[in-house]
């Protein structure tokens, strides 16, 4: 048995469960607050949420966002505000997916999807313009040919925003402050963070606000 005893390790490996993912065909499920590539959201009536305020560009630590606002035309407005995002570009070869732009945005215009499987053979593909970032008429992200989308990955686009905005705290009081999204409506608040919500102090008593 001496020369065969080394095979015992090999044979026991054969019967262990396989951990390897079939990656290009299947993906592992992403966490609900995963930071992927951005989308520019629209209201439920189809108006764009972006008002061209450039706060996202100002807060971006990598300076990867370029925004230029323009005044809305009174007869054909693009956004409900006074101005709208005329140019919106994100350079994905600079973006570090920190989500500071999502936190800075006053109108919840920019959020992040779960899509992280993309790579570029040409540098100019990496700069996403507003046409590529803006959601389509069903409120879904536009899928670029160099991205690998599988299934319904574009369902959850604003979980991180809802978890960190002031109304998304664990001591939730039955009233959401975020606006509806085209194709999805007003999203439900995220439940179950921080264990039992009753055990957490309210925001005005030193809790997380």
């Amino acid at each position, binding site marked *: 048995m001496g020369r065969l005893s080394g095979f015992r390790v090999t044979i026991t490996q054969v019967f262990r469960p396989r951990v*390897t993912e079939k990656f290009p065909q299947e993906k592992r499920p992403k966490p609900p607050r995963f930071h992927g590539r951005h989308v520019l959201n629209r209201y439920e009536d189809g108006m764009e949420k972006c008002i061209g305020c450039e706060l996202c560009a100002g807060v971006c630590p990598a300076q990867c966002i370029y925004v230029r606002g323009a005044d809305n035309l009174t007869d054909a407005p693009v956004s409900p505000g006074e101005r709208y995002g005329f140019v919106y570009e994100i350079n994905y070869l600079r973006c570090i*997916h920190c989500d500071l732009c999502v936190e800075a945005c006053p109108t919840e215009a920019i959020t992040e999807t779960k899509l992280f499987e*993309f790579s570029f053979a040409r540098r100019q593909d990496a700069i996403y313009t507003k046409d590529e970032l803006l959601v389509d008429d069903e409120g879904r992200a536009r899928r670029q040919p160099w991205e690998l989308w599988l299934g319904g990955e574009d369902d959850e686009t604003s979980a991180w925003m809802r978890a960190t905005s002031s109304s998304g705290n664990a001591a939730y009081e039955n009233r959401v402050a975020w606006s509806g999204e085209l194709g999805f409506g007003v999203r439900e608040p995220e439940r179950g963070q921080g264990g039992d919500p009753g055990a957490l102090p309210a925001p005005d008593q030193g809790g997380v606000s």
Partner: protein
Amino acid sequence: MSLEQIPHNFLTARLEDLVQWARERSVFPATFGLACCAMEMMATGAAHYDLARYGMEVWRASPRQADLIIVAGRLSQKMAPVLRQVYDQMVEPKWVISMGVCASTGGMFNNYALVQGVDQVVPVDVYVPGCPPGPETLFHGILTLHHQIRTGELLRRREATGAGAGIQLDQRDGTPSHVQPIPVRRKSA
């Protein structure tokens, strides 16, 4: 005699396909982990994503045995000549993946210490975004490279631009301007 010098006729019509298939399925990467991206690079090679499915499990410590270099992490100015030397020591055909935003453009470190994009030093074939890119993202970049090797797109592009991806900048007025990439010196066969 390299592949490009073989004349095309009915005997060698499928030879190019065969060679490109073999090149695609046996890419050996050189280890060039510079920063935290190297952790994700290791995770890509480990059991859950398992680069061995694509014939890439051997990470060569010697550049002379490798034909792909994955620049994983920020490239400092002092490291730049090292990268160029490692790249020059690799045998043709060779490919470069710029992994992560720091390697691709400098990312959030827009300062004097870092090279703002490794394509200033070596010709990059595939850019992988993310900080750091997850194993899925790197895998997607590797599959993009595989597709380009198999379709011969890189060979055609190198004939056109000399090497690498060829940086093209779109100016604001709409006129594209080509930035000439660093030419690769090739020994004449």
